[in-house]
Every structure is written in C-alpha cells, then in structure tokens.
C-alpha cells in the first residue's frame, strides 16, 4: 500500500510533526502497479504515469480551490476564503524523481547530472517552466503513446516519461521548491550510509567498534557495546546519536583532513536542524558545506570511498547535491526540520500497518478505509462528548498560563483543562517537564531545571568518608577551591587550597545521579528531553566508578571545565 497523506503548512511545525496531533490525514492509498509482459523501462514509465494520474484525481478540487479560493470554516468557526496552493511534497529521493518527472541519476530539484553531484557549488534549479517545456518538446519529437520510443526521447531530455505531471495545473507549484529537504533521509540516513562507511573503510570496523564500545554508558542513550560496523539498519534516533559521537571517536585513527571533512559534514547536519535560521546561521551552514568539499579529496586518497567493485574516486552522491540547495529552500520554505519524513514514516504505522492488522488480509484496502473512517469518527465523537459533558465551549481558547509542553499537544492540553484528574485515552499525553515540578532547582535564567531525589543516596557523609567512597583524595581542597569562587583560569588550573584547609561545613549530602532538562537555546518554549547524569562510586563490579562528563558554562559564558574530555564527578551539597 502506498499511503498519501495531507496536512496544512499553516499549522505550527511543532504540532504538525507530532503524530498524536493528527495533523496529517490520509487522502489515498495509491495503487502500486505491476504490468504484465512489458520491459523494465515501459513498466517504469507506466507506473510513473499511474502515480501522477492517481494523484491528479485526489487533488483535482484542491487545484481548483488554489485558483479560485473556497470558503471554509476555520478552527474558531469563522468562515474564511481559502486558497490551497501546493507548498511541500515530503518524499525520499526516488519519489522526488518520480514527482519532478526526472530521469534516474539526475537531481530532482536542479539541473545537475550524476557527474556533478559532488560539485562544491549548486547547479541552477530545475524549475517548473523548464520541466514543462522539456515535456512539451519530448511530445513533439515522439509520440507519448509509443512508450518504448518515448522512453528514449525522455531519457535524452532527462525526463521520466510522464506527460501530465499532477502539479502542472496546480497554481505555480514548482518542484525545485516544493520538494523540500528531508532531514531523515538526506542527512541522518546519508550520514550512516556514507560518513560512517568512510570512517569504517579508512580506520577499519574493528577499531571504530572498539572506540565506541569503550565509551562510558549513559542512562537513556544507546551504548554501542558491539559497535556499528556490522549493522545494516538502524533507527533514525540511533543515526542521530551516532552523529554526536563519530567526529570525536575517529580522531587519530583517520588522517586529519578526513576528520575535518567528517566534522564539517556533522556540523552542517547539526546546523541545518535549527528551529530558526537567520543570515548568520545560513552563512555558517554554507561554510560548513564548503569546508567539507575543501577536505573531501582526502577521503578518496585515504580509501574511504568504496563501492561493490573496489575503490571509488568520485563523490557522485545525490544527497550531496541536494545539500547545496538547502539555504535556498530555507529562505523560501522555512526551517527544514518541519519537512522531515519522520512524521510520514510514523504515519505509515498508524495509517497502514495498524489498520492492515485489523483486516482479514483479503481485499484489505477497503477494510482499512472503513477502519480509518470509523476511527476518525470516534476521535471527534470522543472530543465532542468530553466538551459537551463539561458544558464547555466547542471553541478552544488556550489559557495564557498553559505550561510549555502544552504548545505541542493542543488536544491533550485542552482536555486536561476540562478533566484535570482524568486519564484521557487516545491523545498523546504531554510528559510533564522538570520545569513544572515544584521540587526542581531552576537556573536563574530559567533555561535549566535540575531534579534531585528527595533523599540523598549518601546522606550526611563527612568529607573524609566521601573522599574515600569516591576515591577522590583531593576532595577537600577541591571543595575549598570551589567555595573560594576562583575560576579555573584564575587558579591556572591548579589546586590553590591546601589538603587540610578548613571548610565552613564538615558533612555532605551526596547524590549519585540527578535529572537535568534544558530549554532549546533557539526557542525557549521548546524543551529538550530530560537526561540523567550519574556519578557512581567505585565498586567491585565497576572499579573506576562512573562519572558522566558535563560541560558547565559560567555566567560569563566562559567554560569552567578546561576540556570536554576532563572527567568530572558531580556533587551536590
């Protein structure tokens, strides 16, 4: 089954990208055609034409509304005249080619040929008028009904043989814009399929695995005890986790220039996921990409590029070409995170797999539709009955003091204001953040919340006991330095207090772990997931204990810790 989903770009990205908000609705199950007794190229052209024809049927009225407008009721019940242009089509690379009517091994959004995929500069965009003119030319050269002949003409014009693209009469929809960058496939999967592969080819999978396996385990973060080099497939989450590790673990095992190239690519992927972009971040984004291209030759000379038949000496990777157009896309379409296919992959489970399991697996399409139809009816009925039973208005006015998580879970928040004590099924319940807990310690700038357990793990230890327990002989002078308030730089990185210095206290409460949560530095309404930081004392099973690394920025913005690699045990008094 090939599901086609639709949503509104007006809905805020944070909400739209949550599967629980039901901002994406299923509009069609497209057929996946298998033609009998035809050659491969003919099969491809016919399948592409079926795709465009089917989408045209579904979108017919939207195209009319894009041109003429259509009166619609908005979420508050007011009527508005609405136009519905096509603004984004979330798809992976093969589907992007299919949608843009481009032949394979071309770029769906630019005029680049495969030999130009590794170029350090963008090619001109493949605009709507260019593609439509090419199709027209192909039709004058050969008959579109003679598929085999039309295939050759299309190939020479870099087309896929579709004559009537569904976007041709949908306002001014231009594939070079509406084919938006897809974070999941273009960056995260690319990173795993290429960047990590380069590192493995150069340093050897065994060494990479060893370096990953000796990293300290952290709660809530995947630990790579068995490495990655033999894994074929990972989840998007794991791809993202690896991006945070790879540049650090390859240092020293690959030539410096290779490390620079991979670091630059990582930087590019991190920067591209910003919630907001401005001229400055767009500039550093293109600089990161430029840096990668500057150093990329070293990956080939170190033997990093390898195909099935031995070493490769080029970078003909379509996703590298797509990366060249990200700044253009951001200015036109907004931050790319909102066009990631994470949400459509997720909807594949809720809109295809789950309904399919409810069927008897025969002629299941119709059964799936009926299932979804009933489910949707129930969803609204449930909301309606809750609102009616509370004699509440059917119009949602979000209260100003609504907590921060509320922004991304409008339905659950609405219900919880009406039924504060009841568990409401079928909506994602917003996880309470540490910022909302009374016991949390919140930083003065309200950006960080820290939560400790009520009772310390080691209450009321004397300093000597604590220093023995944690094998930290210089605990007393270290505490003295901390209390003195002198920064690391002022102390020249040395202990200033004497080992027997006197402190104003004699006992400590020691916690072995705490939970910490941060607000996004870009948008303080967005809260990152909570993390657990551990500092476990040495024991027979863990001879060195465990101390998670923490980077602490001083109010002045300077780092207190001299290097990210310094091992720090965290104590709280």
């Amino acid at each position: 089954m090939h599901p086609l989903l639709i949503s509104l770009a007006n809905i805020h990205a944070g909400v739209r990208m949550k599967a629980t908000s039901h901002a994406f609705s299923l509009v069609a199950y497209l057929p996946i055609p298998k033609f009998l007794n035809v050659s491969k190229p003919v099969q491809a052209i016919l399948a592409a034409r079926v795709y465009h024809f089917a989408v045209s049927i579904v979108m017919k009225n939207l195209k009319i509304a894009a041109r003429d407008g259509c009166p619609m009721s908005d979420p508050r019940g007011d009527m508005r005249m609405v136009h519905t242009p096509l603004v984004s089509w979330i798809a992976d690379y093969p589907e992007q080619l299919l949608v843009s009517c481009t032949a394979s091994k071309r770029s769906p959004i630019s005029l680049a040929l495969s030999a130009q995929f590794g170029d350090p500069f963008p090619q001109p965009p493949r605009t709507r008028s260019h593609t439509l003119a090419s199709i027209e030319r192909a039709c004058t050269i050969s008959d579109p009904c003679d598929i085999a002949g039309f295939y050759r003409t299309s190939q020479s014009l870099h087309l896929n043989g579709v004559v009537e693209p569904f976007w041709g009469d949908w306002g001014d929809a231009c594939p070079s814009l509406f084919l938006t960058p897809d974070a999941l496939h273009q960056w995260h999967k690319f990173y795993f399929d290429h960047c990590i592969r380069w590192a493995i080819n150069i340093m050897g999978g065994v060494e990479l695995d060893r370096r990953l396996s000796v990293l300290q385990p952290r709660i809530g973060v995947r630990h790579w005890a068995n490495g990655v080099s033999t894994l074929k497939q990972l989840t998007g989450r794991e791809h993202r986790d690896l991006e945070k590790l790879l540049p650090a673990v390859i240092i020293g095992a690959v030539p410096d220039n290779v490390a620079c190239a991979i670091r630059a690519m990582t930087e590019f992927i991190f920067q591209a996921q910003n919630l907001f972009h401005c001229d400055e971040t767009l500039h550093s984004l293109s600089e990161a990409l430029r840096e990668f291209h500057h150093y990329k030759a070293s990956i080939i000379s170190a033997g990093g590029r390898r195909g099935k038949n031995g070493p490769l000496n080029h970078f003909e990777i379509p996703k590298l070409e797509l990366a060249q157009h990200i700044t253009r896309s951001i200015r036109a379409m907004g931050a790319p995170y909102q066009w990631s296919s994470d949400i459509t992959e997720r909807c594949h489970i809720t809109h295809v797999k789950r309904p399919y399991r409810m069927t008897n697996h025969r002629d299941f399409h119709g059964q799936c539709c009926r299932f979804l139809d009933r489910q949707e009816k129930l969803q609204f009925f449930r909301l309606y009955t809750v609102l009616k039973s509370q004699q509440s208005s059917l119009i949602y006015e979000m209260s100003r003091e609504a907590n921060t998580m509320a922004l991304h879970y409008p339905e659950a928040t609405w219900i919880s204001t009406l039924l504060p004590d009841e568990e409401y099924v079928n909506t994602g319940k917003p996880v309470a953040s540490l910022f909302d807990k009374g016991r949390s310690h919140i930083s003065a700038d309200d950006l960080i919340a820290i939560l400790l357990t009520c009772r310390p793990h080691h209450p009321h230890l004397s300093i000597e006991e604590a220093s023995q327990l944690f094998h930290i002989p210089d605990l007393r002078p270290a505490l003295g330095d901390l209390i003195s308030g002198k920064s690391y730089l002022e102390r020249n990185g040395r202990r200033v207090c004497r080992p027997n210095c006197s402190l104003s206290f004699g006992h400590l409460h020691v916690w072995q772990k705490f939970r910490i949560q941060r607000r996004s530095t870009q948008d303080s309404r967005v809260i990152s997931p909570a993390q657990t930081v551990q500092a476990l004392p040495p024991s027979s099973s863990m001879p060195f204990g465990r101390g998670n690394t923490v980077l602490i920025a001083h109010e002045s913005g300077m780092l207190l810790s001299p290097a990210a690699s310094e091992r720090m045990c965290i104590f709280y008094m």
Partner: protein
Amino acid sequence: MQTKNNPPSFNTAKDLRARIEQLPEVPRWYHQQIKIGSYETKEPLMLYWRDGLDVVKHLFSNPVFASCIDFQPFQEFEADGQRAYGEFMSADLAWEIQVGGPAMMSAYRYNDSL
C-alpha cells in the same frame, strides 16, 4: 452495578458498528479503477481516495488547532535586524504568494495545503 443500571445502548458488535457509522460524517472514501490503455496488470489498479479538498476543510475546521495555526504570512526579525526563517508562514514563499496573487486574492487570507 454501573453497567447494570446503565446498560450499553448496543447489543451486538454489528449494532455498535452501525452506531459508529451514524456519527457525523468525516470526509468519505471513494474507490475507482485506473486503466492504462490496453496494458494488463497483475491485479486491477484500484485507487482508494478521499477528495483532497474535503480533507483540507476537515483539517482546517478542527478546533484543536485553534491556538497553533497561522492565517497569514509574516516576517520575523532578530534583535539585530536579521531576518529569521522558522515556520513556513514566516518564509518567503508564503509572503510572495500573498503579495503576488491576483488582485482579488489579496483581499482574502491564505491557507496553504501541504
């Protein structure tokens, strides 16, 4: 006790399903066969679909989204005057569609379907 005093309003699964079917309509499903000339396919090409416009209307009228929907394009600026690009409605395309549309259109507000 609860169920005894307040018996459910249905007796059979079929009855319950029939009641669900009676609930207010959501965009309805259609199906149709697609034929491409004389080419034969392994299975008939069936398209199961809903009218895109109906679905958009349905999404747009969902009261849940009242607090998180933009009705018109806008531009955001950082404190130092730099343009910031975040939500779709804050970027150039939405703005250009609004500005560049036919004269009659600009009198209305825009909605953009994905």
